[in-house]
């Protein structure tokens, strides 16, 4: 009997368990999935929780519900990956593996920035990338009387790079609906050179910031927060003050990756970008946010990767060459507020452009353009997530690699 071990039962790990249970011979392979937490969160919902658009129960389910029969589900902390011996040390046992899939994701590390996770954490400084953060922020916003709201990215890469921008757009809507937009100033602070960084998106979407009266502060590389004076200070001495700070802290891979000597500077696993095999070990694969791939850290990326990784695991088992096939495909809805959204479809090489999706020339969804239909797509996605995506069911008409059909692509790619 051989062992395939999946570390992490989030979006990626759960999808892999569901794919592989149907593909691996039960006589030969035992599949085990490990996660210390029993809860599975619908992470895209964390964006909506602060604005009372989703209730807490809409984003939480028991992880067990999504682990297929025949897969052993272990709720223990992962202490170390002993790759020299093909073993994983858990709190209470050792697991041997023939194949290891690392799906331990990424998490926020506010303690990396001086002054962030101290006295004012979840009082005037919030994150919305955790359930606790999003809920604390909801409670704050319910009674906040206005002032300067700063939406901030600490450093790249972060999970779901568009979420901070969506947060700023939804905040504009939220305060308009509450009849207090005139009491709120919104500022978007980024270490990059703009809220939008790609040419087509900047051209097509910059009006959103102007229309919504969101001010941009760019090239701001935060050094520390002086929380007593509500001020962020960057390495060049620039200062940004706030009344309410909503930040996306540094994102790091799991500490077990670091303690096992498997990560880069940010604890992400160096991974081959086309095959998803780890760069150092043939029998270790990585998927989703845990990798160092130059793709977005997003559920849709993990979904496309899962289809390709499943193929490659089977090829690996049969001693055949792996397919160098993953192209960095991502497909994301972006909420713009007031019941509208955008949709973007892109990969490693192709920046998001205008067009139609999923049917070339038909739609019904428009790429890189605001519409109500896109917003409905985003809302419907919660159902798709719980019922199809994490169960490893293929989403019709959406291929794992990006199609260029139906897109306005010119030669000046970026």
């Amino acid at each position, binding site marked *: 009997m051989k062992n395939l071990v999946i570390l992490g039962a989030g979006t990626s790990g759960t999808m892999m368990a569901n794919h592989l249970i149907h593909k691996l011979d039960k006589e030969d392979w035992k599949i085990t999935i490990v996660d210390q937490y029993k809860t599975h969160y619908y992470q895209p919902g964390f964006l909506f929780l602060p604005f009372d658009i989703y209730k807490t129960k809409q984003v939480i389910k028991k992880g067990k519900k999504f682990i297929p029969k025949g897969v052993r589900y272990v709720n223990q902390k992962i202490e170390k990956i002993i790759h020299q011996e093909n073993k994983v040390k858990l709190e209470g046992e050792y697991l041997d593996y023939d194949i290891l899939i690392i799906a331990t994701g990424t998490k926020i590390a506010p303690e*990396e920035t001086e002054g962030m996770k101290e006295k004012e954490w979840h009082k005037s400084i919030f994150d919305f990338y955790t359930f606790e953060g999003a809920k604390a922020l909801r409670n704050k916003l319910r009674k906040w009387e206005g002032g300067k709201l700063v939406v901030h990215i600490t450093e*790249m890469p972060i999970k779901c*790079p568009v979420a901070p921008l969506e947060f700023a757009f939804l905040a504009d809507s939220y305060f308009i609906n509450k009849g207090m937009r005139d009491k709120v100033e919104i500022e978007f602070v980024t270490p990059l*050179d703009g809220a*939008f*960084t*790609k040419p087509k998106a900047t051209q097509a979407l910059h009006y959103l910031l102007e229309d919504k009266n969101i001010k941009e502060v*760019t090239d701001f590389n935060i050094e520390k927060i002086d929380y007593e004076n509500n001020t962020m200070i960057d390495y060049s001495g620039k200062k940004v003050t706030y009344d309410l700070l909503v930040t996306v802290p540094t994102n790091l891979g799991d500490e077990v990756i670091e303690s096992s000597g498997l990560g880069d500077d940010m604890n992400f696993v160096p991974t081959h970008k086309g095959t998803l095999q780890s760069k150092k070990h043939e029998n270790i694969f990585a998927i989703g946010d845990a990798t160092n791939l*130059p793709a977005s850290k997003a559920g849709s990326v993990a979904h496309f990767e899962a289809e390709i990784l499943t193929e490659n695991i089977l090829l690996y088992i049969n001693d055949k060459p792996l397919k160098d096939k993953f192209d960095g495909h*991502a497909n994301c809805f972006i909420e713009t507020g007031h019941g509208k959204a955008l949709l973007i479809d892109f990969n490693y090489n192709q920046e998001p452009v205008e067009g139609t999706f999923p049917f070339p020339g038909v739609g019904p969804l428009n790429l890189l353009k605001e519409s109500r239909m896109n917003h409905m797509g985003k809302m419907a996605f919660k159902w798709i997530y719980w019922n199809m995506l994490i169960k490893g069911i293929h989403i019709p008409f959406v291929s794992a690699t990006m199609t260029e059909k139906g897109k306005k692509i010119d030669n000046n790619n970026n």
Partner: protein
Amino acid sequence: MDNIKRNEQGYLEDFSQWTKEVGTEIAKEKEIEMTEEHWKVISYLQEKHENEESLSIRGIKKSGVVNIKEFYNLFPGGPLKISTMIAGIPKPKSCI
């Protein structure tokens, strides 16, 4: 410099066209006189780019090549934005 292809913002479109002379010329446009210290940073960035690793201020800090204050002194304004342009590699970006 005439046949070096650059995008609207001034970044090289094709890294294979990069030479130390090209880097020096771009630095001049930014009013930067290149020194050994500058080139050390540029080599580090190019190596990261070659390995397809993402660039961040944190990475620079951890690299030991230069500390952040020095990095700002070497490339005043937007250090990552300017140093990547001199290195002939794309500026750090988000997905849109």
